[in-house]
């Protein structure tokens, strides 16, 4: 199962004050806090780790059809590229530019396709295009959310099991789909 998350670094700076008392402690484990505070750019590390946790959370929620919950400390970064949620391991790859941090999480050795957009883009329309190309035939594709708020896709009105994920923050957005 897969999940992605993007953080607009400029917007994050104005939306959140990670140095607020209690902020780090509520969202990050002791180890993660140490990692953040000992790095050369703590602010950047906060958002990289946050996007990693969010991406893994989305993959985990989709994998098990879970209700939404807010407990980021149960999503533990490390060792290395891995992340653990309730004993389940996810591989998370992150990339950074001066403008955004982006993470892609995978439960198995899935091959994924992901596209990031740096200007206002309809990512749903973009994913439709990609899926249509893959199907090689004109199809009616629509998106909805299931009862847990997880986005799902219909192809010619039939519920599809293609895993995918959307993310959007500030100026940036991205879709992720299993290849």
């Amino acid at each position: 199962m897969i999940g992605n998350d993007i953080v607009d670094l400029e917007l994050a700076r104005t939306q959140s004050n990670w140095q607020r008392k209690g902020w780090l402690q509520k969202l990050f484990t002791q180890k993660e806090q140490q990692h953040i505070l000992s790095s050369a750019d703590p602010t950047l590390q906060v958002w990289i780790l946050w996007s990693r946790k969010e991406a893994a959370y989305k993959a985990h929620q989709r994998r098990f059809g879970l209700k939404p919950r807010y407990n980021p400390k149960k999503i533990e970064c490390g060792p290395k590229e891995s992340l653990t949620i309730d004993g389940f391991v996810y591989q998370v790859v992150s990339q950074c530019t001066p403008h955004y941090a982006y993470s892609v999480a995978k439960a198995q050795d899935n091959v994924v396709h992901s596209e990031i957009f740096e200007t206002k883009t309809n990512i749903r329309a973009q994913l439709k295009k990609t899926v249509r190309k893959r199907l090689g035939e004109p199809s009616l594709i629509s998106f909805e959310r299931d009862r847990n708020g997880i986005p799902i896709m219909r192809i010619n009105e039939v519920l599809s099991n293609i895993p995918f994920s959307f993310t959007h923050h500030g100026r940036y957005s991205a879709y992720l789909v299993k290849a």
Partner: protein
Amino acid sequence: MTNKELLSKLKTIITPYVQNQVGLENLTEDTDFIKDLEINSANLVDVILDVEDEFDIEIDNEAMEKMLTVKASIEVIEDKLAKK
């Protein structure tokens, strides 16, 4: 504190983080912070910290996990106030 007072205090707390004003105007107990109000998930922790300050309570991870709707938040606050 009545339920109405609690709701009004909670509304004041969440207002700065709300990105969907229509959702705020139509606030009910069933309102979902992320889905209906489009509060950024990284700002939910600010809501939690503001609630702690406003009501002088401590919200543990287990309680925080549930605080995604108005109704669940009010339940957590009432529970913590009762234990004070």
